[in-house]
Structures are given as structure tokens and as C-alpha cells.
């Protein structure tokens, strides 16, 4: 069992960095401050773009004349490097390329065009009460399914939904979205995202009810699975998440999800905490468990612990240490650990560079295996 997970986790490489929960250290307790999707990910709001341009990224490539002018930088953060010619439309695009190498594996290094997306947001009424969001993405065929002879479309939509905020604190969103569960870290290969079926292509059609008032954020999301998938494999059920801000830069959360397809029933829960230590320094922790009950066969319960720390070394430049543990079966002996030190740098707005090393280690009473290593480098551009 451990070996299967180990192999899977090594193949599911790639880091998708749209949402950054570590911005709790800047006092942002909800993703809604910067994203149209209140649970994070997807296109940025005008405010989110200007915060990224002025606060979170270095200013290397800006001309001298505007480098130290926050107002001008914010003005230039839009898709058109200025105001949108159509006030109610917000186009955006992004590209992400990944280099990876697995030392000692004998496999050659690879460059993958991991993601290329174009999105369009139409927003109406005061405070963007009504939004219509659509995103089309190029996503390469996963390494583990290459050569299996099955048809695979490399173009897909990861988001299309309509959202309406009835009040400032309550909104309803319907369509294809990510599931509201746990800390939505950009690193989609983490155990916390793989085991909870919250990977980069695990979006589902459903309705998201979102409430944010004072220190409390609640999301309830009944879903019917991704309608592009065959009906019998679609997981249908609901997920819910509660977050409570306990301090200026600290938030505690809990998630629960229950769903069923013709083949399996999934139940999962998690507890999480995110806290900031001055601007740019943060600690994220998530502990969770998922139970999978196949229609045929015994149920299996996995457990995971996710921990990610970030230290801001210079404007736009951070050091990251990720430490994870998972038990593929809580009733069996054996764990997998993964340690991932990395460097993330935003030399300028619209550009992210990231380098990571992943050391995966197993602890088993039945066999021994040496650590496996992976080195990745990532370029992310967005417009």
C-alpha cells in the first residue's frame, strides 16, 4: 500500500500556485479579499491584483519612474497594464512551466508545460454582487496515464460558475468549482490534497453557500461531481468548512465531507490552523483523515499531517519548508514522510519563480527503502 502511494505521489508532480493561504500573515483571513471565488483559487479581483503588485512582489522589472509609487503599480496591475476598456469585464491568463528531475532514478529531467489558462470574469452591480466566471485550461496528460491508450482531452474547464452575493456576508455560487475543504495550498501534490481528492483536476459541479461575518467564515457545498466525467464515477455529496479567526493573524478551521459514487463512499474530515508571525512569515498546519469504503472490499482509512512554514527573507523572496506525513492505512504499520525545502521568488508582479527539493521517506516495519528525491523548478507567469 505504501509503495503504491509513494509512486503516485512522485508522479503527481507539479505545483499550482494561485491561492496563498500563508497571506494570513498579512491579516487576510479569507481568500475572498483577493479572489472572485470566496474559497480561493482562480482569477484575482482588482484589489487582489493591486495587493500583489504593491505588497507581495519585488519591483525589479518595473521602470525607475514607477518603482516606488504604489498607486501607479496598482494601476498597472490589470490585464491591460491599466484600466480595463470594458468596466464590467476582467480577462486574465496564466502559464506555468515545471522542470523536474529525480536524482538517482535514472530518469531524464523533464520540462512540462503544466498549465496554461485563460479566464474571463463578468461582474455586475455595486461591489460586484453578480459575477460570472469562466476558465479554460490546457492541462497535459498525467504521466501515470500516458500510453494507456485511453482518450484524454488536454483542454478542460477548471472553473465556470455564477455567483451572487445577497449581502456583504452571504453569497451563493453555482457551477464548476474546487471543493471547499482544508487549507487550499497551491502545492497540489501535498498529501492533504491528494488524499482528500482535492487535486488540481478534482473540481466538481455544485452549489457553494458562503458566509463571512466578523471572525467567522462558513462554506457549505453540495455537489454532484464533475459532469464531464462518466456518471458512475462521479462523487456526489457535500462538503463543509468552518473557519474562525482567533487573532489578527491566526485562524482555526475544520472541514467535513461526505460523498458517494457507484464504486465507493468517501468520508473525510480535517482540522487546520494558520498563523502569521509578522508580515510574510507564516505557519500552516492541517491534520485530517479520509475513509474510503469501496462497494466491493474493505474500507481503508488514511491519515495525514501537513505543515508548511514560510519566512520572508526579502520583498517577494521567501524560504519555505514543508513537512508532511501520511499513513496510507491507520490500522497498518507504516508512514510516508515528505520534506520539502524551497525558495519562492516574485521578482516582479506577473512572475513567480520557485525551486523545491522533495525528500520522501518511508517508515515501515515490513521493508526498507532509501529516500527518494525530486528537484523541481517552476516558472509562473500571469497577465
Amino acid at each position: 500500500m505504501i509503495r503504491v502511494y509513494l509512486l503516485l505521489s512522485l508522479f503527481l508532480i507539479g505545483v499550482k500556485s494561485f491561492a496563498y493561504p500563508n497571506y494570513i500573515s498579512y491579516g487576510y483571513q479569507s481568500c475572498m479579499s483577493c479572489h472572485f471565488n470566496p474559497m480561493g483559487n482562480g482569477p484575482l479581483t482588482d484589489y487582489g491584483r493591486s495587493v500583489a503588485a504593491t505588497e507581495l512582489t519585488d519591483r525589479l522589472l518595473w521602470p525607475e519612474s514607477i518603482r516606488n509609487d504604489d498607486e501607479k503599480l496598482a494601476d498597472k496591475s490589470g490585464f491591460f497594464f491599466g484600466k480595463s476598456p470594458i468596466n464590467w469585464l476582467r480577462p486574465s491568463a496564466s502559464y506555468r512551466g515545471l522542470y523536474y528531475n529525480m536524482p538517482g532514478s535514472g530518469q531524464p529531467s523533464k520540462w512540462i508545460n503544466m498549465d496554461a489558462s485563460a479566464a474571463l470574469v463578468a461582474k455586475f452591480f455595486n461591489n460586484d454582487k453578480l459575477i460570472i466566471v469562466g476558465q479554460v485550461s490546457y492541462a497535459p496528460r498525467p504521466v501515470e496515464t500516458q500510453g494507456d491508450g485511453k482518450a484524454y482531452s488536454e483542454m478542460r474547464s477548471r472553473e465556470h460558475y455564477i455567483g451572487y452575493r445577497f449581502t456583504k456576508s452571504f453569497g451563493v455560487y453555482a457551477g464548476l468549482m474546487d471543493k471547499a475543504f482544508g487549507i487550499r495550498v497551491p502545492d497540489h501534490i501535498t498529501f492533504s490534497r491528494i488524499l482528500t481528492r482535492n487535486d488540481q483536476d478534482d473540481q466538481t459541479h455544485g452549489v457553494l453557500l458562503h458566509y463571512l461575518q466578523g471572525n467567522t467564515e462558513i462554506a457549505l457545498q453540495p455537489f454532484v461531481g464533475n459532469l464531464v466525467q462518466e456518471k458512475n464515477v462521479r462523487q456526489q455529496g457535500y462538503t463543509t468548512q468552518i473557519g474562525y479567526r482567533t487573532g489578527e493573524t491566526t485562524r482555526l478551521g475544520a472541514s467535513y465531507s461526505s460523498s458517494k459514487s457507484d464504486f465507493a463512499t468517501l468520508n473525510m474530515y480535517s482540522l487546520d490552523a494558520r498563523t502569521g508571525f509578522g508580515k510574510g512569515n507564516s505557519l500552516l498546519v492541517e491534520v485530517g483523515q479520509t475513509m474510503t469504503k469501496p462497494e466491493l472490499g474493505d474500507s481503508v482509512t488514511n491519515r495525514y499531517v501537513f505543515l508548511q512554514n514560510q519566512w520572508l527573507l526579502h520583498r517577494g523572496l521567501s524560504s519555505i519548508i514543508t513537512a508532511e506525513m501520511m499513513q496510507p492505512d491507520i490500522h497498518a504499520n507504516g508512514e510516508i514522510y515528505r520534506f520539502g525545502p524551497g525558495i519562492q521568488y516574485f521578482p516582479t508582479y506577473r512572475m513567480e519563480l520557485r525551486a523545491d527539493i522533495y525528500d520522501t521517506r518511508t517508515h515501515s516495519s515490513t521493508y526498507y527503502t532509501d529516500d527518494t528525491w525530486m528537484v523541481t523548478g517552476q516558472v509562473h507567469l500571469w497577465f
Partner: protein
Amino acid sequence: MVLKFLVTVVLVFLVTGFGQLAWAFDSNAYNVALAQARKAMSRKDWRDAEQIADAALHAQDHNWPPSGTITEDFVKKLKGRPNSFFALVSLSADAKSHIFILHDESMTDDERSKMKAQIKAYTDVLAQSGVSVEEAEKIQSRVQDQEQLATLEEYKLSLGVLLGYSTWEDRIYFKTSIPTHAILFVPSIGLALNYTNAFYDWSGGVSYGIGDGELKFSDNSFDDHPKVTVVSGFASGLIQIHDSAAAFGAEVAARSVNVNGHNADGSTATTSPTELSALAVGRFRVSKLDLKFKGGMILGNPSALWAVEFGYPLYLW
């Protein structure tokens, strides 16, 4: 009548005129001193500037420099003094503030408090007389900044307790030239001396741990319960990133590792290698509790060591 008026005018002229001349004479002395003091200031010769200014002020007014709190009465008495007088007061206070910054560390407590009192008296004169409020505030805030900086730079020594958990992959030699592959997990307890200020955090200490792991011997036999003990000495240096709440740096450690495993035939295999490691360290601080994350290499080994560690101060000097 006309004569009386003319005599009065002449008398008034003579009195005020001589008065003006008398002040002009004093002002001239101030002006000469001011010019010299300014030259010294431009050379950044703060001591010289201070002495020239204070000597000129004292020569004209033997009660100068004022002692104690500057009162309204005192300020009233200064009314009518020429601008050059206040310029000298300002220049002297400015020079004193630079001397305070430059020699803060070498001053005795007594010298420091005397200097601070003088700067305060001079700037109070400037502020309360309304002549140069902004300049007075600037000089005072410079002194306050220096005091704050001195507080931040002040190192404190503390002794703390450590609780850690580390894991590493190793190559161990049990009386053979073929290494035994090992993955080890060791919880530990220790003590650390911390020497810290607001900018740097220097630590050194020792820790002891007992743990287990897995061994794969050269004959491919497997032991899933070796006994591992580690005695470790370390030294680290961190740069404080934000108000001491976060820090990042490096650590070197020397570790004496003892591994007791069992071969396939049940016999015991023991070895005690000494290892050196170099680690990157990130630290967060919640109140007094330190939370450290460490990762890096063990010299001569193919893999890495990872550790999490809690620290809590027991004694502060």
C-alpha cells in the same frame, strides 16, 4: 516745548542706540563662535563644535548651561536674546546628539544620563522659546532612536530547555566495508544557551535522544527495531526577521550516534559513528515558546536530516 521734545528724542535714541550697540557687540561674539562651530559641524567634528558653542554660551552667560528642568521663568529670561544665541544652543544640542550616538556604547551610565539631560535642557529651551521647535523635536527623536536601538542591540543571555524530534537516513558500518542502510527517528531533550538581541539569535547547546528506525544490512536482512541513542552538540546563528517573532539561519552540529541492531541470526550489531551536520534553520516564536524547523545534510551521507524542535527559556540573566 519743542526743545523738550528734541531732548527726549535724543535721550531715547542714545539709550536704545547704545543698547543696540551693546547687543550687537555680544551678537558679534556669538556670530564668530557660530561660524567656527558650524565649520566644525561640517567636518563632523562634533566634540569641537560642542565645545566652541558651549564656551561661547558660557562666556556671555555664566549661568549657562542650565541645570534641572527648564521652566517658563527661565525661558522668559531668555527673551530678547539674539538669534545667534539660539542658533548656538541648537548647534550644541545637535552636536551632543551626534556624540551621544557615536559614543553611546563607551559612555558610563553617569555620562550617558548627564549627556541626555543636557540635550533635553537645550532642546527644551529651543522648543519652549518657540524659536526652533522642529529642530528640537528632530534632535530629541534622534536621541530616542539611539536609545531604542541600544535597547534592541542589547544582548541577553538565557538558558532554555529543548524538546526535539529528528529523522535522517544514514549509512552505518558494522565491522564491514559494506554500509548498512538506515532510516532513524529520534526524539530528544536538551539544554541551550541563547545569546540574543533583536537582530541576531546565537545559540549553543547539547541534547540527548533515544529512538528507533529501520536497518537494511548488507546481506539484505532487515531490522525494524534497532535501538538508537544520540548525543549532540550544536551551535546556531539566526537573523531575526520580524520583531523576534520569526528568524532564519544556520546550524552546525556534531553528533555521536550509537546504533544497536540485530542481524538475521539474532546476533547484536553495534556501532558508534560521530557525524557532522549542517542545517538550515527557521524559527517562529509564540510568546516565550520557540518552534524551530531544521533541514540539511549529514556530511558524508547521501541523504538529509530533518528536525522539529521546541524551546522554552528556563533562566534569564
